[in-house]
Structures are given as structure tokens and as C-alpha cells.
């Protein structure tokens, strides 16, 4: 288990070591970060009860609601269209 964490972290460190031109690389890094997030979930929420998992999911889901509502507000303002 601890080895898994180590290898995942090592992979992340390697990815951090080179930077090129594409924004896709940035997205990849963020995707890796999400993978780490899942791994941390492995550490905690995986071994937790269903109730705990629900709270964790609910927190992020609420954030998703907030983000999508606010962003769609901004997206529909059409300030740059005359």
C-alpha cells in the first residue's frame, strides 16, 4: 500500500519535471492531480463507511453545483457581443 503511494508520488514528481508548450500538458498534470486525489481517497474514504463516502461525495457535488451555476451565469452574459 505504501509502495503504491510512493510510486504514484514518484510519477507525479517526474511529470512536474518537464514543461512544454501545450495547454494539454497542463490538463494532463491536473488529471494526474485528480488521480492523486483518488489515491488519497483510497487511504481514507475507501476504508470508511458508506456514510463517510456520502459526505465526501456530497461536498464535491455541492461545489460542482456552485461552480456550474456561477460559470453558466457568466457564460450567458454575452457582454462582448453587440
Amino acid at each position, binding site marked *: *500500500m505504501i509502495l503504491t*503511494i510512493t510510486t504514484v508520488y514518484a510519477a507525479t514528481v517526474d511529470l512536474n519535471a518537464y514543461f512544454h508548450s501545450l495547454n494539454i500538458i497542463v490538463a494532463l498534470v491536473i488529471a494526474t*492531480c485528480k488521480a492523486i486525489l483518488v489515491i488519497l481517497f483510497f487511504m481514507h474514504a475507501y476504508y470508511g463507511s458508506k456514510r463517510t463516502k456520502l459526505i465526501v461525495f456530497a461536498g464535491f457535488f*455541492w461545489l460542482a453545483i456552485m461552480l456550474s451555476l456561477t460559470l453558466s451565469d457568466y457564460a450567458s452574459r454575452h457582454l462582448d457581443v453587440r
Partner: protein
Amino acid sequence: MHRTGELSGQFQTLEQQKESATLGMWIFLSTEILFFGGLFLTYTINRHTYADVFSFSSRTIKLSWGAINTVVLIGSSLTMAMSVWAAEVGKKKLVTFFLIATLLLGTVFLGVKGVEYHDKFVEHHVPGLNFDMYYCTNNPGACSLSPEDLAKEKVELDELTKKMGGETAVNANSQLFFSLYFGMTGLHALHMIIGAGLLLWLIKQSIAGRFTPQYNTPVENVGLYWHFVDIVWIYLFPLLYLIDRH
């Protein structure tokens, strides 16, 4: 209460008691997710609106410090996870060792942040204080940039000024980036300091041999907090440091 790992009156089983502590921490972390989430949202909207300025401003931040900090922080999450593991298998000395390691790495992180902030003060990138995006290119030698970097920056800055329609516009909008930079990393650093305080409290207890396989809830919960702060940084780093790095 449950300070000695015994069952408190309001719980039916030890497992339920432990779970309620973890649950409480997760609920708190949910509020923290929303707290940081709002800042990330502000960042996203402003980055979309002022993409060029944000791209330029991000590139004036030294990448190496951010990268080092990321490694340090992920390392500290690892040592934190190891201390939780050590508590679960009953290796008391290891618990203390890993907690101290986590604290040390956290302090290194904060130290590097201090260096970064100092750089910002020198380069006049502090909104509200002495903000001037043109300071480094107007006063060569004042910022610690090599001559080619300085020349490159001048070219980009001139292009940006033309695009934005004047120096005031560039200064005004890049202040947005740096306000967000200081706001988000500052809030994150504050959480790190609180985490460091929590770790000190844990270290004091673990030296006294408090944590056993039966009772290691504080270590686990502070671990949750620490991992959360790490995750926030994992998202902060690419968003603030890695915009259009060529």
C-alpha cells in the same frame, strides 16, 4: 471522553465513535472545499476574461520555487500517511518520527513561500503596495533576471501593452492575477500554519506515547486535514504557475 480510547456514553460501539470523528472532519473539509472553491472560481472567470495578462503574469513567477514546493508538500503528505500507518500498527517511535518529518517538510514549504513572497516585493508585484509590472524592464538590475530573460520580458510586455491598449490597463488587470496569487497562496499558507500547529500538538501527544492501534483518531484526522491542504496546493500549482509556459 474518548481521550483514552474508551467508549463515551453517547456511542454504541467504538467503531461508531471513531467514525463520527472522521465524519466530523470530512464535513469540515467539505466547508473548506467550498471556501477554496470560491477562490478557484474567481480565478477561472478572471483567467478566461484576461487570458493574455494572466498568461504573462504567471510567467513572471519563478517556476522552480513552485515545483520544489509541490515536491516538498507531496512528500509531507507521504510522511503524514506513514505516521497514520505507524499508529495503526503500533510503532510509537515511528509515529513521532513521521510526524516530525511532516512538520519539517511543511516548514520547508513555508520557508520557500517566504522566499517567493520576498521576490514579489522586490519585483514590485505586490498589489496595493508598489505594484508596477513595468518595474523590472524599466530598471534593469533591480530584479534578479538575466539580460536575455529581461529582453524577452520586455518584448512580451510591449506586445501585451499594445493588445490591452496602454500601461494602465496592463497594470490594472495583472494586479488581478497577483491579488489572486497572494490571496490563494496566502490562504493556503495560513492553512499550512494551522496544520503545523496541529502537528505540534500531535507530536507532543505522540512523544507521551498516546497513540495506539486502538486509539489513533487524532493522527488520522489531522492526516485528513493535511492531505486536503496538499490537494489544494496540487490544484493551485498548475493553475498559478503553469499558464502557457513555453
